[in-house]
């Protein structure tokens, strides 16, 4: 069930100069959250920021009543969220959108770039719990942008690429050597910039492997009523916030 709920900031853990984890705690219980779900976060004390910001859920701890978000500070809203002090109140609408399809006892490749790594802690945990083997592949410009490797390494085999070669294989994520053995994988999950996801989806589709991509379209409402965040699909314009954000790549006309 969707809910509008007040939280307090526990901490903002900065991972590098541009990204952080926002940890929020509630007085009351937290709704069930599936990997890929997102929240619409109201930016507190920001009269010049009118709309909520849709942010993918990074982690949830039902016992501690905590929910956390991996956020890249790229605009006014995401920068403001990163500057909140512990104790600040934050109001969120969640859980929104659909989620990645879980698979049992399979080999899963998870490809992320930019803020697109956010849903992949929860997804990795879920897949492991179902007996699937997880392989991560994250791409970035430099080693500074490859973060949370300790978290992801515990959940699966961790690989990365950097454009400057400072960590992992040098080049774009799509040129990683893992794709030589793409047929080993039963499913590919991806989230990140559209051009990256399109390239990943193409590789998967060429090898008849199911690929699920989570889109990051601009949104207003987050609950499927304003119809602002659409993406063209084989069934016409789909509303990303309510029919997505996760789509099977073959449904997308991107």
């Amino acid at each position: 069930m969707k809910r509008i709920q007040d939280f307090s900031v526990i901490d903002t853990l900065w991972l590098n100069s541009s990204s952080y984890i926002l940890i929020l705690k509630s007085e009351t219980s937290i709704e069930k959250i599936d990997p890929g779900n997102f929240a619409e976060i109201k930016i507190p004390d920001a009269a010049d920021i009118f709309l909520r910001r849709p942010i993918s859920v990074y982690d949830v701890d039902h016992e501690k009543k905590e929910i956390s978000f991996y956020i890249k500070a790229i605009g006014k809203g995401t920068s403001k969220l990163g500057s909140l002090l512990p104790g600040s109140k934050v109001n969120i609408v969640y859980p929104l959108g659909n989620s990645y399809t879980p698979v049992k006892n399979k080999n899963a490749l998870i490809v992320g770039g930019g803020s697109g790594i956010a849903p992949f802690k929860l997804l990795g945990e879920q897949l492991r719990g179902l007996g699937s083997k997880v392989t991560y592949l994250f791409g970035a410009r430099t080693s500074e942008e490859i973060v949370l490797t300790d978290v992801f390494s515990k959940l699966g085999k961790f690989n990365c690429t950097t454009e400057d070669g400072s960590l992992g294989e040098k080049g774009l994520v799509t040129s990683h050597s893992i794709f030589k053995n793409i047929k080993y994988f039963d499913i590919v999950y991806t989230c990140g910039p559209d051009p990256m996801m399109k390239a990943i989806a193409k590789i998967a589709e060429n090898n008849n492997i199911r690929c699920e991509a989570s889109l990051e379209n601009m949104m207003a409402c987050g609950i499927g009523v304003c119809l602002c965040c659409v993406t063209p699909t084989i069934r016409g314009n789909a509303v990303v916030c309510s029919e997505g954000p996760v789509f099977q790549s073959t449904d997308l006309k991107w």
Partner: protein
Amino acid sequence: MVDLQVDIAGLKLKNPVTTASGTFGFGEEFVDFIDLDKLGGIFVKGLTIKSREGNDYPRMAETPSGMLNAVGLQNKGVDYFIDSIYPRIKHWDTEIFPNINGSVIDDYIAVAEKLNEVKGINGIELNISCPNVKEGGMAFGVSCPSAIAVTKAVRKAYDKTLIVKLSPNVTDIAEIAKGVEGAGADSVSLVNTLLGMAIDAKTKKPLLSTITGGLSGPAIKPIALRMVWQVYNAVKIPIVGMGGIMNGNDAIEFMLAGSTAIQVGTANFIDPQVSEKIVDEIEQYCISNGISKVTDLIGGLITE
């Protein structure tokens, strides 16, 4: 106890708070957040005779104290609404108002005739003011003769409460309001969005695929209030006021300017509970001010 009931040309709403078309889906999207039975009415997403895919993405741009949209009436058509959506939502104890659109008068008539036959739907909103598509009819809404012509035609096709939604993108909204009143409208709702535009200086490109779009939110509230006041002083039919209403106080202001009922629009995107809160806030205002009937607020602006 405050009497919150209002009357739109014979159609009783349990309170003046309704939700604006295009900002509230078909109501069912909000059931996790509010009790829809508490609302005076719901103006559901705009309908056309045939299904429409709407405009290309991007359709939205955040602007100071508001937003631009260029959705372009994406909908599955009036038949789908009647056959598949209305049966799911009709059990709520609130008035459901379809918002109807067309590119030619015959399309409006066809949609109105279909809705006229639907038991339980007691009123429609005739949209002659969507700025984003030809089918949204703003061409009808910005000239007096064409506004009169489409209102007359739909009036003939529709027996129940007919509310005409006016465009603010005109020189004299009161003249248009008088025109549609004379053509048989039971009520007018105003204002639809203001035609606007946003540009990214870095890329030198527009932020909307359609270049221009409709501005909504608190940014337009002073204009909307002024127009409600002008129309209130020009017509006798009831007004459904809207434009940047974010809370109960804003709603009261619209009633003081002459609105019988109000629509909550863009605020639903920021707080999905806001419409129900506004009902409570209006009641509280009445209690605090010793007002026993909410209708006493209508046009209650003190100008001397």
